[in-house]
């Protein structure tokens, strides 16, 4: 699972690679972290990462999460400024959905062609970035109107990948 996460206004990319018991494997930028996360009490999480211990409180205020620790509070939101909330930035206009690259990288696979019917959560394009292949999925069921990239191409963050309707 891949997310854009805004922390105090700065956007980060978070990939949740696996969840097993209390162990969560995350990738953040180019770094991979194995975190042990325990919900010790309502709102309170104990997180161990790289041997360090963090005691974090999470409250929801509106659409934001306030995560506070000994070192202060952070505003975290899982919706990017551009309205993205899943594997790719999604710009929808009147039923039209634009899939955009959520990070710079190289297109290693294009899994659909214009005219294809696709289902929600179906993979559309695979982008290699930070030594990992990331599958960009469509969040909605529909028809592929356009595919704007081809295999081997390099894309910048925010580039249009495909349009689904």
């Amino acid at each position, binding site marked *: 699972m891949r997310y854009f996460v805004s922390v105090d206004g700065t956007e980060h990319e978070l990939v949740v690679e696996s969840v097993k018991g209390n162990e969560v494997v995350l990738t953040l930028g180019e770094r991979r972290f194995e975190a042990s996360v325990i919900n010790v009490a309502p709102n309170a999480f104990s997180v161990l990462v*790289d041997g360090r211990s963090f005691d974090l409180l999470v*409250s*929801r205020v509106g659409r934001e999460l306030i995560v506070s620790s000994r070192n202060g509070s952070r505003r975290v939101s899982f919706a990017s400024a551009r309205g993205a*909330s899943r594997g790719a930035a999604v710009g929808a206009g009147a039923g039209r959905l634009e899939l955009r690259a959520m990070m710079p990288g190289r297109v290693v696979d294009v899994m659909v062609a214009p005219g294809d019917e696709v289902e929600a959560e179906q993979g559309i394009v695979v982008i290699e970035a930070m030594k990992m292949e990331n599958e960009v999925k469509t969040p909605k069921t529909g028809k592929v109107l356009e595919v704007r990239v081809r295999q081997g191409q390099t894309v910048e963050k925010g580039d249009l990948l495909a349009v689904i309707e």
Partner: protein
Amino acid sequence: MFKRILIANRGEIAVRVIRACRELGIEAVAVYSEADRSALHVREADLAVPIGPAPAAESYLRIDRIIDAAKRTGAEAIHPGYGFLAENAEFARAAARAGVKFIGPSPEAIEKMGDKVEARKLMQAAGVPVTPGSPDTLESEEEVRAYVKKLGLPVLLKAAAGGGGKGMRLIEQEKDIPEAVRRVVSEAKASFGDGRFYLEKFLRRPRHIEVQVFADTFGNTVHLGERECSIQRRHQKLVEESPSPFLTPEMRERMGEVAVRAAKAVGYVGAGTIEFLVDAERNFYFMEMNTRIQVEHPVTEMVTGFDLVKAQIEVAAGRPLPFTQRDISQRGWAIECRIYAEDPANGFAAAPGQISWLKAPEGPGVRHDCGVYAGGEVSNYYDPLISKLLVWGRDRSEALARMRRALDEFEIAGTLTTNLDFHRWLLRHPRFIAGDIDTHFLDQEYRPSVLASSSKLDDPVELAAVLAAAWSSEYAVARHDGVGGGKTDRAGSMWKMAGRFELMRP
């Protein structure tokens, strides 16, 4: 000694008085508005009486209902706390008429200190230094001009009946006089129904230092040292300490002696505070007297070792003061941070709300006077004070380190915003650490951006932890919504449903 006392207040000070009652073996009667049925002071009290709807004007300010509650419950005395009716002479009189002891000074003392011009006159007569200014209320622009000539600019025009920053105008240039006079008169009439005003020399960057006084009915009047209260926003104190890092022992003694003289001048009984402004040359001037217990009284308790609220009750019961001036000395250093439900990033605007989790700091040298609890709320009807966090240390340096530790330990979550990060910033500010503060400190040093920058995450490990917690919290919510039922999951079971979780809530 009284058997039962009614507390005409709410929040942390009501809980503070309940604790004093309990230690004295006295039953405590709480009063509460409709918004406060499950407030902490109601839970902690022995008896509780509803006194009306949420707005204070219809409950905590209703003299008739509170007196009635005291009579119905057989309370022999009323503790007014601070705020609400604490400095209302009419309330003190109504209690006396009902045969209930008012825990505080006489109505006459309250009134004398309530009128700022009268109080200045009284203090001057008693040899207490007051800010240079007009000895009486003024009538015209011409009179103002005459004093400006005498004292020099800037001056402060103040409503005689004023308070809380209302009816006050700074005059920096002579041409501003006409408008300042018009504004003060009109504001004072509108706010207090009393257009009288007077004039004071304006002190640049003064410190606010106050002296705790205490008197019994046997003529013993003592002081318990000073409190430094210069850290303020909108004329409201945020952080207080005792002793003051600014005072010399000689100055402390002189201010204490003057404060005792001031209290004696109005025949004061009980706990009171003489507030002074102190300029950079260490001149101090009487500002006003607060004829009640103050929010920040615990810093004095921690360095002197005396329980001031219990002493208030004992004095009101006709006992002599449990200490003489000779018994009083300061040991170590105490600091108080007022924890408010407010947003320092947004002009310190009140930001009340529900409290879902609260874990206060504990351990050596920490005191927490709290008015709320986990599961409760900070009501938007009243002052958004959550609690007072206090520390004691051998010296100021240990107290500062301990307060930083305690603030870092403080956990609170819910729909409210707190000023914890503000305090964390302040306690690390070089000027604050050096004791180099005055009442304009925050105007000069504080910008909302200082908090934002202090929480920048340049540590990727910490960022990973923050995101892991945030994601897990979202995940738990999503799981809860999708699968329903159950309390918050604990370790282990929490992740079971990972496969089902597809979409993060935006």
